[in-house]
């Protein structure tokens, strides 16, 4: 799975460069996020603008990163979430856990003091 790094105002942003991250790529994703967290990427904005579909293994990987690393949903905000992914969050009630922003800029602004 390709993960693309960028920053805005010093805040790290990780773009998931895969339209359909699947069971096979969930471990790649967790490893990629873990490596960045250990290098100081906390908070980390997840830009999901290229993801059009995600299954429960992908969602499980997101939840695992939140539990193991960031501990607080404010430290791992999601943005540009496609309707199918938002629907998955709602069906599993994870929309009550993760903070979802309409754009990277909105997530950056929410993280600034």
């Amino acid at each position, binding site marked *: 799975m390709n993960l693309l790094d960028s920053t805005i105002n010093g805040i790290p942003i990780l773009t998931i460069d895969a339209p359909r991250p699947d069971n096979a790529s969930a471990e790649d994703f967790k490893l990629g996020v873990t490596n960045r967290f250990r290098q100081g990427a906390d908070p980390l904005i997840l830009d999901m603008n290229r993801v059009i579909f995600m299954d429960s293994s992908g969602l499980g990987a997101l939840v695992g990163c939140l*539990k193991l690393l960031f501990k607080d949903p404010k430290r791992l905000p999601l943005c540009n979430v496609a*309707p199918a992914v938002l629907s998955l969050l709602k069906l599993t009630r994870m929309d009550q856990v993760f903070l979802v922003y309409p754009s990277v800029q909105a997530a950056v602004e929410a993280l600034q003091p």
Partner: protein
Amino acid sequence: MKIVGSRIELRIPGNHPESVRLLGVCLRNLSLSVFDPQGAAEIELAMVEAVNNSILHAKPGASDIQLTFSLSPRGVEIDLQDEGQPLDPRILEAAGQRWDFDPSDIQNLPEGGMGLMLIKKLMNEVSYRHENGRNWWSFSKFHPSAAPTQAQDARTTIAGR
């Protein structure tokens, strides 16, 4: 992929998770002949979860996972067969009934166990039986005009019960 009468048969290897993505895209696009994009996306998610489940419980050397897609007067019907470990019917019955967690209790959030719950929420009927060493699943999703007006989990049927 094979067209047999009014059915479309799809087969993927039980040991090849990468095939699931393509299968999901096929089923979504087939479903667009009956459903709007949201309904078709729901079918894709439910069937990806079902096939992931089949792969997870596949036995070494098992034959292909076979799906059959057909249109019905009410919507679509998808049958799935595999040779994996049989499912304990109690797990299917209980799926989704105890999907309860405190969203603020981060350390105890569930990371798995969502697949069957999602299938039951997204499809209108789910039936399962284990026969002659094979798992036989049948899933139906009704067109909105034929579906119950209130959202509810799928009617679940388990053979012999």
